[in-house]
């Protein structure tokens, strides 16, 4: 008997269940197919897009992230240049293959240097786009892939994330629906990172310190949706 069969048979013995019990199998298959939601917190139910944005922003700022709101994607390069300058950071940015990021009017900021591809240990600033954002706790939903390689979220000391307001949803469950729409009903990108602020630790004397292993600082750029504001 393999360990797999041994473990499964011990589980069935403990539960008093038989193998190949059609009734139990139906219960499990139905539950997975139903993808039923449980409780959604009242803090995000029946809210206007403006209220959701305020909530999202509030949570991120509480966790020491910077949040910038822009009216158009075209403003992103200059907003990033200003952010880097005001934080006294270098003008070199690593970005993946996401065309909505690479095709921005970077020409307006000629001193900004763009590096393409996955992050390298020497990169200081990473720029990615979130697939969705969740208002209930100020959480970004990052889907890995060639457009937004996962290492960009963790290696650089500064992480800049662009998210469109139309992708800002109330709850985690809504974000899963966005992922399902994009990747298929039961499929996932290789990694989905839910990120709620810069890296931190409380492991030394219980004192909170930012930048444990991941980014020390985070800047979230929300591109407002004219249809909702």
């Amino acid at each position, binding site marked *: 008997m393999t360990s797999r069969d041994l473990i499964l048979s*011990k589980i069935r013995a403990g539960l008093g269940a038989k193998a190949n019990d059609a009734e139990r199998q139906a219960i499990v298959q139905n539950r997975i197919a139903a993808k039923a939601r449980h409780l959604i917190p009242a803090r995000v139910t029946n809210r206007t897009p403006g209220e959701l944005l305020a909530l999202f922003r509030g949570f991120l700022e509480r966790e020491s992230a910077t949040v910038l709101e822009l009216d158009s994607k075209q403003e992103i390069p200059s907003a990033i240049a200003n952010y880097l300058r005001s934080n006294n950071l270098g003008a070199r940015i690593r970005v993946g293959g996401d065309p909505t990021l690479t095709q921005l009017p970077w020409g307006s900021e000629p001193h900004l240097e763009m590096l393409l591809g996955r992050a390298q240990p020497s990169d200081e600033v990473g720029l990615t786009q979130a697939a969705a954002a969740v208002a209930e706790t100020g959480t970004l939903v990052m889907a890995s892939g060639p457009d937004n390689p996962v*290492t960009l979220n963790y290696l650089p000391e500064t992480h800049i994330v662009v998210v469109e307001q139309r992708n800002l949803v109330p709850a985690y469950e809504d974000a*899963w629906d966005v992922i399902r729409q994009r990747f298929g009903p039961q499929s996932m990108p*290789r990694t*989905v*990172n839910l990120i709620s602020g810069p890296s931190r630790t409380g492991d030394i004397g*219980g004192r909170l310190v930012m930048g*444990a292993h991941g980014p020390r600082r985070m800047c979230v750029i929300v591109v407002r949706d004219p249809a909702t504001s």
Partner: protein
Amino acid sequence: MQPTTQSFKQNARVALSDAQLQRALAGLPTGLVANRAAARARLPEFEDLRDIGRDIKDHTLAHLDLYLEEYERNATAAGAKVHWAATAAEARDIILRICREVNAKIVTKGKSMISEEIGLNDELQSAGMEVVETDLGEYLVQIRGETPSHIIAPAIHLTQDQVEADFRRLHTKLPKDRVLTDPAQLVGEARQVLREKFVAADVGITGANFLIAETGSSVIVTNEGNGDLTQSLARVHIALASIEKIVPTREDVSSILRLLARSATGQEFSTYTTFSTGPRRPEDPDGPEAYHVVILDNGRSEMLGTAFREVLRCIRCGACMNHCPVYGAIGGHAYGWVYPGPIGSVLTPSLIGVRDAADLPNASTFCGRCEEVCPMKIPLTKLMRHHREAEFELGGPSARYRLGLKAWAWLAKRPRLYHTTMRLVAAVLGGLGRRRGAFRSLPFAGGWTRHRDFPAPQGRTFQQLWAEHKAGAPR
């Protein structure tokens, strides 16, 4: 990990007189405990979510075989290699084999209590590999040759001064005159040292907070991002999970995640929650080339048919130990094995045997704070009581203790005799102790009076006072 549970009483005595430890533990009430209370207050639905979380886990455990099979199907379809380990030794063998196959020299690790349970680091180090814990707290205990003293704050027993001394002792390549007085400087140094390891690692091993049957994903929750660097930069990612980590859907895990960080650290949400599904895809520029999941049983399946099935709902938030007066007094190491605090007092005897861990279920005042805060509503005191019964059946307690219990039971089963005796005792002790209000020593109560005075009764029993109260007599 070799248990020292048998010397619990001695461990506890040492812990109580350890001034450093006592200083480190003093921060619990204003730290994790206060933070959890604030987080709970900010989410009015918190108590409803506890019921939901309990129900999700109960449903999953009742169909555990089927959800594991569904998980395996979906994980394999996404390119994961799923391994099953019935015992700790088997899990070690599987992981060692994977590491050897890729000729691993450096292995980085995200935080995993199960890897402590199976003694993984020793195994890999004996095979000549360099094993580096990357969670800062785990790194601190690793460089001291210690084990975690808390399941989410492994170095909670250490003070900042100790960390500075360890870094100066170990990081000898750095300038001797560097300033390390601020926690931020210490974190910065650890970041620099560990960053090199992340980049050089061949294999990255993480635990898993959850496995999702619907998608075949494993989930890790961290605040540092160390787990993500561990699993994204190494060539091979191995996730180690025990059988009870499974949940049916992403909706189910979302509900439980609303409880986890709030119960653990009092955060709204942990900084990083990462869902991993399969290895690097053909189009991916980064991520591990191979992704293995090791599913560990190690005694858990045997708990399913018993009252201890409820322990398998545990999501390892640590709230029970944060709120436990015994843990708060002695810290985690005294418990003598991987899982300290109330959850350890229930889980450890189940996993390593009641005989070896008999003192743990007795290390409780039964105040019940642990179950009041448990997000999964595990009846911890009830289960400790089950262990105490099992210990008694095994003949665990001493002959004197058993005789005392027998005598008490004999008396307690005879209400009239009991009340007469108690009235007599209350009257006599009340009379003798009236002047001082307490006794410095009492026959048969040396265990108590060695450490503190025994308060003198008022002279009448509760039953007497109650009868008078009901009769309307002035008290």
